[in-house]
């Protein structure tokens, strides 16, 4: 009874605002996830699982790599119905390291024609890759316009909210790099820029 009265007193004050009445929130306008010194394999001799289409190696000249981030034990609010997470990918930057730090002869990223980043649906994690791709969402894409860049910036799709995937405990991002011709192995720093809003509705938790 007392709780109901308390609720009745407060609800009108924020009725027009929508959303939870009492909540805690963390906003990070710029969240950078860096993978320094990430190794990209050479196209020649790459194992079949590295090809975008393992049944058609070399055609197209496309190598893929999947990054799995398992947050199940790191995000304390995973699977909590009172938590909501809005995570948007702003951009991904691939910065080639200087020639002295390269394992091969690569000095620029001219051989990369395009880059596509896909978010794989965890619900289809056990399915064949073609099924996973069919249920994936493209979250960033790049088509080379400069002749010989050393830095590639892949613009993110700000309309896609990655939050539900993260709250489910796992984030699988597949990067597909299409080459113009055979490329040597190279090393680059990869950085993903995100924005994040984490909201916890403790009003619903209490009442």
């Amino acid at each position, binding site marked *: 009874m007392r709780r109901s009265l308390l609720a009745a*007193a*407060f609800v009108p*004050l*924020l009725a027009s605002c929508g959303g*939870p*009445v*009492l*909540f*805690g*929130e*963390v*906003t*990070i*306008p*710029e*969240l*950078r*996830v*860096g*993978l*320094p*010194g*990430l190794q990209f394999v050479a196209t020649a001799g790459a194992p079949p699982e590295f090809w975008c289409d393992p049944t058609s190696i070399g055609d197209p000249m496309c190598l893929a790599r999947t990054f799995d*981030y398992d947050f199940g034990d790191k995000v304390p609010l995973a699977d909590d119905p009172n938590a909501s997470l809005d995570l948007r990918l702003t951009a991904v930057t691939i910065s080639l390291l200087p020639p002295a730090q390269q394992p091969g002869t690569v000095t620029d990223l001219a051989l990369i024609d395009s880059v596509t980043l896909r978010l794989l649906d965890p619900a289809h994690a056990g399915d064949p890759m073609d099924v996973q791709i069919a249920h994936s969402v493209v979250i960033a894409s790049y088509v080379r316009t400069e002749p010989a860049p050393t830095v590639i910036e892949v613009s993110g799709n700000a309309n896609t909210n990655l939050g539900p995937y993260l709250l489910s405990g796992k984030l699988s991002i597949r990067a597909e790099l299409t080459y113009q011709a055979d490329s040597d192995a190279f090393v680059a720093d990869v950085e993903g820029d995100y924005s994040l809003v984490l909201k*916890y509705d403790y009003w619903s938790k209490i009442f």
Partner: protein
Amino acid sequence: MSLSVACALLTLALAQTAKPAATTPTTGAAAQPRPAASSPAAPGATQSPATSSTPSELGAQQAAQPAADAEPRYPEFGLSLDAAAPAGVTLAFVYRPVSFVRLWVGPAWNYLAFGAEGGVGLAPFQGAVTPVLSVEAGRYRSANVKARFGIKSGTDANDPSVLLEDVAVTYGSVLLGIEMGSPRGFSFGLRVGLSRVWLKMGRTATFSADQNGQPTTLTLVDPTAGGVAPALKLGFTYWF
């Protein structure tokens, strides 16, 4: 000590409430304008005008009647001292342009830093106990929360407490409550409501880890924490 002072002030506010109506001219005879009550003709005011007044005096009394019906004037200025959670302590200069509106602004302190608060309050009628609806907002200077609370930096390179070295608090509140006491003198207020709070951290924190053999860095730039929380405000106002 502070509790004793608060109790004394509350007692004073209640004493103001209990004063005779002549000092709180909000109803009945108390609403008569002061000049009429203290004029030389006042001793005869209890007698019938028909037996004690000349025609010219009657005309003067009728002319004074609209002034008696007019809203009594209250002090326009006041000084308030409030303690609120989560807002802090505010010493404010209060201005009452019309009887049902209060505007205030003043310095504030929340243990971490000094700041300022401003607000507007609406009191639909004046009396010994008056309902008040207020909207207020404030902002505090950036503060080093680590230093204020003596939090030691961790030896780990991934110490997140670096974010607490530069924290600026901003808030806005909607409060509903009552004021007890005299609208001409001393009053005590109690209000409850909701506050929206933002804690902006002006530092960048970088954490590094090794995930499946791959070094990974996580950098947080300008994070903000906050939310909506219940608010409580207690305070005293002296009108002069």
